[in-house]
């Protein structure tokens, strides 16, 4: 009975979405206040029904109701409670339900936190989000209903994929979806502005905090995914350029470009068309990711149950959403006015450079991801695009980007005297080159890549410090700093500061771990000792160990340095009871400057095992960087000026720079 209620709630949510996509929008165009006023309650209604539907599915998993096909496939009586809940979004149908619920959550957030926006604008934004919601709800109801029954009901369920039975993976998809779906808010704001024909600084100001928050979630989701891959897949890699990873990385890149471009549009009224296009692009790439993951056009370690009929449905949906929005763009863009002009050396042009690089990298990642499909479709054969392509691309473009990143925040809007800029960065430049050369010396690392990475990071750090010093001088001391924290624009600045520091940290982590990690694949019998770098590893054998729903061989490896015990690690080889796939649980001794990582391979008889030992310097810095970036984004999004009542000043400014003020060809 409860699954049927869930199903019914889903249908009602779709009905509400249909109303929401049409009435408020039409009402905003022909000025019918009662229709406009529908937007907010409809958003709440959709959220309520989807929450009900989601709760019904959670209940089915908790109660082991195997008469529901989806539960029979992915649930199991032996699953620990946490994984019974995370199994809800562990596969295709349920993850779609989570997607829809999160979309409704964002709608409610827009309805609640945008009281100071013009009502028509909110109505249009919610209508556009309603259209997206129609797509996902009908996709679910027509091709992937999570509440389908199965008869006769099996006695036991097929269990959640053991790879996903992990705390990191329980929260990774919701975070990622928050990001993907959150991009729909920026998208809807852009579409609403295109429909209304009013494209101004106020629009950029409204979009910014939403975009930032969505981008923060995406950052957290990707970082968690990378961290999970590291400790769960058993070979110490942290990024695989898998199509599904790329699917999350592309919206992130486009979102990063959007966050920066929105700043220019808000502050200077420039780049309007470009910003709109980026807002459309970021969400389009999120949708494309959904298509790639679920249609089966590409192979991936993450493959969901794929089905060409589903693929066709999503493709049609993509064509409607992306094709429709780009058509609207082509129609409206010619009449969007140009913003304020700027000179070659100005913050605008540096940000434009950063944007172009980010979009170029996005395009190259897309090309690399789709290349196997392209070759196949054109009959050129089968290829796979791997690490070398993507890595070369990053090595090629990131130094240029970092150079711009360092100089950008030190440059003034509109015009900056080139010799002043040179004077401001001179010291940073010298210091970073010197640091790079020292780091590359044979005595220290002897690696040119490490030298470049250190130089780039020091460049970022020292320009950030220069910027901070300049700011503090202008604010005259600690009291000024406090005021700065509470005032407008302060947190946005410190947020930028933290996020850029995160990039510096990330570069060090990535380069050092790729350059200096040490790996040994050895056979170890109990009592065997192996030296790796300064560490001595002793294998003390493996013993049987029982988990709640798995059996494991649990190894004990003691690690010594200078005769002193540093760590006792317990790598495991698990066999889950239902899906008897062997899983590795690595034993990791985490540290700020290095990780020691041990994983069990295969038993070789007589108590001996093949064991993989890794020494991974600075690997934590990768995720530390991700965390700093996310923290910076949150700080920036919390800037008080986004919560200000809309002032008349902004309105007046907007009218001048609005749509159709000048025509450009």
């Amino acid at each position, binding site marked *: 009975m409860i699954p049927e209620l869930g199903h019914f709630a889903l249908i009602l949510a779709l009905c509400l979405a249909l109303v929401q996509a049409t009435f408020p929008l039409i009402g905003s165009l022909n000025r019918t206040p009662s229709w406009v006023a529908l937007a907010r309650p409809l958003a709440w209604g959709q959220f309520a029904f989807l929450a009900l539907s989601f709760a019904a599915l959670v209940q089915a998993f908790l109660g082991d109701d195997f008469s529901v096909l989806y539960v029979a496939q992915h649930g199991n009586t032996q699953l620990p409670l946490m994984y019974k809940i995370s199994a809800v979004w562990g596969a295709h149908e349920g993850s779609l339900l989570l997607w829809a619920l999160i979309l409704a959550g964002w709608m409610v957030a827009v309805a609640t936190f945008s009281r100071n926006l013009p009502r028509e604008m909110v109505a249009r934004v919610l209508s556009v989000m309603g259209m997206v919601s129609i797509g996902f709800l009908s996709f679910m109801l027509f091709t992937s209903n999570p509440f389908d029954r199965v008869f006769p009901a099996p006695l036991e369920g*097929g269990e959640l994929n053991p790879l996903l039975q992990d705390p990191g993976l329980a929260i990774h998809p919701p975070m990622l979806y928050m990001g993907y779906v959150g991009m729909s808010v920026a998208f809807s704001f852009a579409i609403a502005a295109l429909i209304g024909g009013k494209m101004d600084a106020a629009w950029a100001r409204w979009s910014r905090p939403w975009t930032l928050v969505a981008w923060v979630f995406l950052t957290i989701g990707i970082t968690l995914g990378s961290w999970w891959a590291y400790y769960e897949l058993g070979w110490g890699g942290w990024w695989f350029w898998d199509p599904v990873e790329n699917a999350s990385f592309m919206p992130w890149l486009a979102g990063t470009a959007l966050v920066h471009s929105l700043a220019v549009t808000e502050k200077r009224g420039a780049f309007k*068309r470009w910003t709109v*296009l980026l807002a*459309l*692009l970021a969400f*389009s790439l999120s949708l494309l990711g959904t*298509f790639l993951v679920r*249609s*089966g*056009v*590409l*192979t991936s370690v993450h493959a969901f149950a794929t089905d*060409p009929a589903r*693929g*066709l449905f999503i*493709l049609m949906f*993509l*064509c409607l959403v*992306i*094709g429709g929005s*780009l*058509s609207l*763009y*082509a*129609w409206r*863009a*010619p009449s969007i006015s140009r913003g304020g002009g700027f000179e070659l050396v100005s913050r605008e042009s540096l940000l434009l450079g950063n944007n172009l690089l980010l979009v170029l990298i996005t395009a190259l990642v897309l090309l690399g991801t*789709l290349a*196997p*499909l*392209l070759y*196949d*479709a054109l009959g050129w054969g*089968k290829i796979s695009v791997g690490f070398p392509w993507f890595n070369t691309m990053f090595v090629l473009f990131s130094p240029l980007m970092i150079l711009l990143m360092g100089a950008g925040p030190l440059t003034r809007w509109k015009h900056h005297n080139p010799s002043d800029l040179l004077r401001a960065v001179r010291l940073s430049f010298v210091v970073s080159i010197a640091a790079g050369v020292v780091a590359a010396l044979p005595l220290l690392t002897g690696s040119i890549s490490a030298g470049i990475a250190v130089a780039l990071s020091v460049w970022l750090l020292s320009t950030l410090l220069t910027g901070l010093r300049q700011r503090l001088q202008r604010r005259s001391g600690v009291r000024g700093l406090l005021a700065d924290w509470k005032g407008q624009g302060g947190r946005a600045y410190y947020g930028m500061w933290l996020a850029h520091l995160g990039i510096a940290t990330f570069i060090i982590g990535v380069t050092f771990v790729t350059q200096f990690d040490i790996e040994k694949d050895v056979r170890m019998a109990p009592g065997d000792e192996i030296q790796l770098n300064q560490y001595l590893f002793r294998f003390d054998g493996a013993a049987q160990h029982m988990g709640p729903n798995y059996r494991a061989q649990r190894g004990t490896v003691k690690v010594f340095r200078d005769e002193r015990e540093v760590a006792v690690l317990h790598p495991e080889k698990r066999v889950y009871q239902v*899906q*008897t*796939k062997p899983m590795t649980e690595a034993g990791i001794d985490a540290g700020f400057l290095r990780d020691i990582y041990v994983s069990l391979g295969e038993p070789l008889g007589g108590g001996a095992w093949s064991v993989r030992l890794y020494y991974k310097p600075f690997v934590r810095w990768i995720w530390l960087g991700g965390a700093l970036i996310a923290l910076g984004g949150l700080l920036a999004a919390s800037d008080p000026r986004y919560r200000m009542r809309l002032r008349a000043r902004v309105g007046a400014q907007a009218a001048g720079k609005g749509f159709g003020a000048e025509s*450009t*060809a």
Partner: protein
Amino acid sequence: MPPFVRYLTPLVLFLALAALLYKGLALNPREVPSPLIGKPAPEFTLPELKDASRQLSHTDFQGKVSLLNVWATWCVSCRAEHPLLMQLARQGVTIYGLDYKDSREDAQRWLQRFGDPYVANAFDADGRVGIDWGVYGTPETFVIDQQGIIRHKHIGPLTEEAIQREILPLIQQLKGEKG
């Protein structure tokens, strides 16, 4: 050039991408060309599943068109394709099995419970023979002709569609060839 043409560029690019994706839906990325196709079946000799005293080897494939289905009781998709194998067996298709990294008791219980479509099953407990056959996941199904040459490999569970469109026509064609 009218001004709006410039702004159509993103749309045109997207439509090209959509066309590519549409074409991609009809393709199968899992269809990896196996180096074994057109080659004789790799040599092996393994005990039979139900009767360990009997032996099964690559020479058994000679003189008839047959399928070799790689399966295991721990493999969920194998269970999904099992009814299709039963149906093929009823249609008179000769199916050999390679029971891959499995336990003898589990496998026999499986066949009792779900039915036995196989004329015989090679029992590959440690997966050594699987390696020679290039198995990288169960289930996989090979089509072997009368000379014992591998002609087709299907990766993943068989589907109704794959059987009707690929497997059965190929079996008909191979039966027509001189043995």
